[in-house]
Each structure stands twice: as structure tokens, then as C-alpha cells.
């Protein structure tokens, strides 16, 4: 899938996981899509939910090796 930007938050812990994604999305324009690489467990549970709470469109997570990928579109 072609997206407009990419961020890897696998080295981060809560709350910096969502903080980094949010700051990246704030730099992007409406309609653009961000690929987020994140760990399973707590980040996979909380980051997509927090993004949905702030009205971003979030894809179902895709497995990427030991991690996951999310595709987030700015509405």
C-alpha cells in the first residue's frame, strides 16, 4: 500500500507511542495516510483506539514480522 509517511514506534512506550504518531499526523494534510509500525500488546490495543477517538480513520492491523502495521488517514 502506498502511503504518504511512515513512523516506527516499536522503540517507544506509552504515552510516547501515541504522542509520536499524533505529532506526525499534525504535520500531514487532510486525506494523507500514515503508516505506523508498532508492537503488539499495549500499543496495538491503545494506539488505534486513541486515533479513532480523535477522528482518524484506522485500518485493521497487518502483521509485519514480529510487529504490526497500521494505516491511518487524516480526515
Amino acid at each position, binding site marked *: 500500500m502506498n502511503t504518504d509517511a511512515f513512523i516506527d514506534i516499536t522503540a517507544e512506550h506509552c*504515552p*510516547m507511542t*501515541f*504522542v*509520536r504518531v*499524533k*505529532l506526525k499526523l*499534525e504535520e500531514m494534510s487532510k486525506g494523507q495516510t500514515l503508516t505506523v509500525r508498532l508492537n503488539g500488546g499495549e500499543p496495538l490495543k491503545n494506539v488505534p483506539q*486513541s486515533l479513532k477517538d*480523535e477522528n482518524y480513520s484506522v485500518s485493521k492491523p497487518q502483521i509485519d514480522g514480529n510487529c504490526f502495521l497500521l494505516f491511518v488517514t487524516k480526515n
Partner: protein
Amino acid sequence: MINQASWMERYSRQILLPQIGGVGQKKLGESSVGLIGTNSICQPFFLYGVGAGIGKWGVIDTIKSRATELASQANLRNPTVEVVVFPPNRLKRDVESWVKLFSIVIDASNDTSIQQQLASACQLTRTPIISAGYQGSTGWLLQAPCPFCLGTTPPPPSAKNIDTPLDAMVPGVIGTLLAQHVINFLLEPPKKLPPLLLSFTADRSTFLSQRPYIDPNCPSCHNPKKIN
């Protein structure tokens, strides 16, 4: 100068808030507040404002050591903000150039001559100003060009406040309210500050929000002139 990683770490909890985010946090960092006074209202206001990351401060008190002491507390709370202590006579020299240094001016001086100077200077330079004060069990903050055309409210500058533990709560509440009010203003500055009088009466536990009367003939508001 704080690096990006430290900035994110320090303000992460505020960046998470939908009403602030990264954009709002940067706005706070680029904002500046001129604070006149160091009383019990100023202390919670200053500490919450500094903690929230309002980037630049100018502090004046009639006794300079009080301003210096307040400024030194910023280093403990948030060493990334810049606090400048101005000498007490700075307002007498050229108050207009001083108020222009800031995004907003907060007057907690409780001094009529200073209030009048600031009212005229802020009106002339179109610098937003909020006054705050307390007397006994009542405290208020006034968002209006000047406190001189209000008729009956707020109470006039008072005799000495008595610092009992109960009285100390009033400036604490007003200072906290003021901090939130100023942060809201800096995040979304309105084109023009609407007149507003917020008052708190401790012995009845009540807040009152009013639109204050603005005197169309007030010399400070409608015919501002240099007082110096």
C-alpha cells in the same frame, strides 16, 4: 533551547489532550506573558503557566526581590521557560513599549496608578489585559480594557488582605482559574477579548460570570492617552 525529544517527553501528557496537541503546545511555547505582581494570586498562576510551557515571562513587582524569588521558582518547575525580572521603575519609564513585549498582560498589582497606566497602554497598543484581585472571601478576574469604567464591580483595591488559611484559598482559586483562562486564550486567541468578569465568593462557594458594564465615556477605555 530544548531539543525535540526532551520537548516531547516533557509535554507528552498535554500533547495527548485534543484541545492542545503538538500545535497548541508550540503555541504556548511561543507565547509570552507580562505579569505585574507577585501576590497569592500570581504564585499559582505563574507556577501553572510555567508548568504548562508558556515560553516567555516578564515579571514586575514593586519590590524587586519578590519578583526575583518568584522567577527562581520557575527553574524548579520548568527550566525550559525564559523568565525576565524587570525593575519596578520599568513601568514608569515607558509602559507602552513594555506591554508590547507580550501576548497578554496580567495585572495583579492592586495599585490604582499602575492599573491606570496599564489600561491606557494596553488600549493604545491593543495588548490584551486581564486584571485579577481579591478581598476577603471574594476574588475576581476581569477581562476588560480597564477597571475604571465598571461602576460597582469589581470591588475597589482594598485595604490589606488578611492572610488566614481560609483567605488564602480565595487567591489560590483565582490564580488557578486565571492560569486556565490565559492558557485557553493563548491556544485560541479571539480577535477581540470579550468583556468578562468572573468572580468567586468563598463563603458561599459560588462562581459568577458577568458581562461588565463598559462606560462609553471612560477616559481610559475610550479616550486613551499617555499618562506619563
